[in-house]
């Protein structure tokens, strides 16, 4: 059978989601952002919530996400996306609001915002892209940078004495009673992409069901910042990132009931 006979409309099994625009992304070759954008577009399309989804993208490589996914977007100041998303979700509770943040944005400058938004149990979805580096500005050390990892500002590797410990922000969020679903995923293999898609879908369903804050960390690569090829970057991530940032669900349920929580407090 000739290839031309196979390439027909009725045999189509995978094509670009319609919510993804035809613009070519500004991301570097092999960047995980592209895969996560695609997954978001697929999930939003699948749930049929294009008209009522609002994305909030603060500073980072994904600041131009509004060019690529055909939904409503709102820009936010660096790190303040959860605060802006809180406002949108409270003013218009029918909307499904999500933020799309990097590790420099969420784990560094925006730590307070995400902590309090998750602790309040806001009905938002937070997509957290963790590539252990400030990718947009040229590969400087981020709070999530691994010990010993070479970056533009730690040329001899991250030093514990000088730079402290890497921040596992997802584990911290998992402790908060307002968080409904906290998960860490990756998009380096087809199987991982499919699992990440499920996690994102669950998060959006939680937001629609008003279960509380859903938080999905995606352990990602930054091949330009790490000075590796995309394939090598995936390998480096598997060998170095996964032992410290293990993949899997950290919390799966819904935010704590007010009654139970008050009793717990009084007993203490």
């Amino acid at each position: 059978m000739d290839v031309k006979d196979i390439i027909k409309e009725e045999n189509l099994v995978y094509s670009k989601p319609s919510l993804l625009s035809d613009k070519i992304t500004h991301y570097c070759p092999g960047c995980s952002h592209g895969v996560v954008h695609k997954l978001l577009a697929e999930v939003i399309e699948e749930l049929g919530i294009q008209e009522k989804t609002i994305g909030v993208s603060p500073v980072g490589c994904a600041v131009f996400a509004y060019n690529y996914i055909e939904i409503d977007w709102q820009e936010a100041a660096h790190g303040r996306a959860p605060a802006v998303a809180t406002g949108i979700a409270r003013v218009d509770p029918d909307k499904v609001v999500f933020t799309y943040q990097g590790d420099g944005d969420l784990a560094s400058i925006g730590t307070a915002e995400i902590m309090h938004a998750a602790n309040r149990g806001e009905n938002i979805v937070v997509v957290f892209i963790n590539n252990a580096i400030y990718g947009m500005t040229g590969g400087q050390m981020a709070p999530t940078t691994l010990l010993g990892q070479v970056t533009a500002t730690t040329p001899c590797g991250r030093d514990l004495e000088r730079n402290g410990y890497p921040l596992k922000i997802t584990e911290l969020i998992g402790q908060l009673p307002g968080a409904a679903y906290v998960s860490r995923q990756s998009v380096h293999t087809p199987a991982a992409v499919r699992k990440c898609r499920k996690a994102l879908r669950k998060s959006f369903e939680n937001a629609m069901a008003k279960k509380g804050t859903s938080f999905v960390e995606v352990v990602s690569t930054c091949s330009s910042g790490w000075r590796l090829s995309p394939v090598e970057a995936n390998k480096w991530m598997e060998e170095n990132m996964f032992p410290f940032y293990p993949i899997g669900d950290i919390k799966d349920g819904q935010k704590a009931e007010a009654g139970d929580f008050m009793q717990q407090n009084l007993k203490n």
Partner: protein
Amino acid sequence: MAKVRGAVVVDIEACKGCGLCVVACPHQVLAQNKQVNSRGYHYSFMEHAENCIGCSNCAVVCPDTCITVYRVKSEKTV
């Protein structure tokens, strides 16, 4: 015996030549072209088209969503 055959179409201009699809393919169908597209990237192409089973793994991991996958079941005895 029914045999599953597949084919992929790569949007040459959208491909950035990252090579992630080449690694993701379980049957070594894809390879990076020696030629480049208008932006200078070695875009992916089907080097061994006859091996493709249309599993969509390449398209799933593609960060630029430039791969479309087709699959057909042929009732051919091999």
